[in-house]
């Protein structure tokens, strides 16, 4: 039996909280519930927003009342926790060119942790990361699971603008900037694969619940991928398991 707490979020949202912690186990419940809801959404639901440990259901109060919808959601949750079906996970391996002008803070991250650049890259590429949720900017994944030995504080003065695809570290978190923006993270590399394209059929690459891995590429490989992306010829392989 799953524990959960239900409360309103404004007058058009219902917030369902599974626990007050960040953990892959709790986050899995979030995505299992979202899957079920997306397959069998009660009428009046506008959209479903997963986060670390919560699911927020946006609804039209003039189509379905709060109490009525909460009752339906609780029913679905009880059924789900009884069956707890295993779900398919997507795994994406992103090519990253580390260091140089693509990763101006790689040396700092290495020096801060008393490691070589190669060691930082090796530790960064040897883990599977869980995309707990998408937020902050369009297509930005909140990734969890980084090796604590390459953790590093944010930059004391954020950069005014970094390009989309920049891979960075802040504290014990790693992430990829999905759009060009000001950045306080330590930038260690760059992936040429676009994470957000508003005009594509699937506007974002990474979805909540995905498993992400980084793969180091050489400069020639990187440049080859860059031009394939430019010509819209690049397709990233996605594994399902």
């Amino acid at each position: 039996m799953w524990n959960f707490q239900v409360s309103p979020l404004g007058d058009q949202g219902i917030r369902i909280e599974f626990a007050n912690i960040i953990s892959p186990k709790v986050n899995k419940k979030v995505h299992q519930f979202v899957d079920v809801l997306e397959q069998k959404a009660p009428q009046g639901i506008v959209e479903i927003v997963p986060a670390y440990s919560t699911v927020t259901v946006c609804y039209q109060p003039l189509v379905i009342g709060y109490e009525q919808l909460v009752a339906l959601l609780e029913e679905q949750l009880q059924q789900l926790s009884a069956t707890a079906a295993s779900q398919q996970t997507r795994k994406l391996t992103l090519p990253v060119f580390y260091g140089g002008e693509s990763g101006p803070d790689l040396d700092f991250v290495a020096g801060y942790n008393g490691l070589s650049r190669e060691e930082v890259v090796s530790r960064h590429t040897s883990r599977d990361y869980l995309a707990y949720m998408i937020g902050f900017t369009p297509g930005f994944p909140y990734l969890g699971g980084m090796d604590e030995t390459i953790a590093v504080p944010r930059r004391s003065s954020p950069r005014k603008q970094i390009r989309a695809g920049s891979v960075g570290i802040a504290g014990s978190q790693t992430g990829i900037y999905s759009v060009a923006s000001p950045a306080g993270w330590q930038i260690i590399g760059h992936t040429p694969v676009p994470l957000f394209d508003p005009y594509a059929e699937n506007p974002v690459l990474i979805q909540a619940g995905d498993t992400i891995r980084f793969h180091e590429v050489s400069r020639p490989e990187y440049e080859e991928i860059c031009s394939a992306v430019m010509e819209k010829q690049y397709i990233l392989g996605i594994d399902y398991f």
Partner: protein
Amino acid sequence: MMERNVVEKKTDKQTVGVLEVIEPGLHTTVQDLGRHGYQKYGIGPSGVMDDYAFQLANILVGNEREEAGLEITMIGPSLRVLQDTVIAITGASLSPSLDRQPLPMWTSVYVKKGQEIRFGKPQSGVRAYLAVAGGIQVPEVMGSKSTNVKSRFGGLDGRALAAKDILPSMPMAKESVRLRKGKRLPRKMVPVCGQEASVRVLAGPQEGLFTAESVSAFYSTGFQISPQSDRMGYRLTGEKKLELRDNTEMITDAVATGAIQVPGNGEPILLMADRQTSGGYPKIANVISADLWKVAQRLPGQTIRFEKVTLAEAHEELREREQCLRQLQLAVRLLSRAPSLFPYEKFN
């Protein structure tokens, strides 16, 4: 597999330029009722800030309520009419004129090719809406014509209007344009933009994290709107900083439009149309949907006060407003079809 095919939906309908931008004004954007269904991808709703005035403008010109129009901020644009059509201006009083003659607001007005629409001194409120018969027909991006300026997509190339832009609309038959003019909103339905300081809210999901004194101060004192307020959010300054019971960090979760989140400095931020989709600051309260327009029309420097209501009351307000909009839409449609049967005087 990620398809990279462009699906920017070109409207299959033939469009024509209806307005040309002479001067863009301070911040004029194409907006509709927002982009819904993409928050799980980190893409916020955007859309109009004052959804009440906006829908009224569409109804007056005989459009569906969700057709795209212009949101005009404080200093309005100068526009040249490229084909005869009907427009309606609602929301903030920004002294609109047509060929230098005052242009009545909350009324559908016939405008002729070559005429110029201008705006002057802001009188009250912040955001005016201009609806044009047939709507502004820019391509839909992710199901909406709304401009997301920060992420640079939607509307007109993902940006605010610039000089020489041409705004496309539907070609209109002369007869249709003629029938759509002269619809005036009954006086009692005209909202007074910018005057209302009291805004109704529901308790936020993290109200319990705040000290009792802070919750009480939140409802008993006014908050001043800071100059750093825009379509993303309003920064508010109160008499006292709002404090948490302890320093437990909150886990990032989804936010809603109207959410009032409180970062570490104790000064609340009220999230508006161009908000992000998630946030890590505790939310003390959430403005009810029916009152968001009041916030949208308040100026920096002005104050707002919060009054707590129940969820049932919030929904009742929405229901009443919806009924009102539906009745008005029906009346305007009847008038446009058979004007002789429903003389304008009787309707008003």
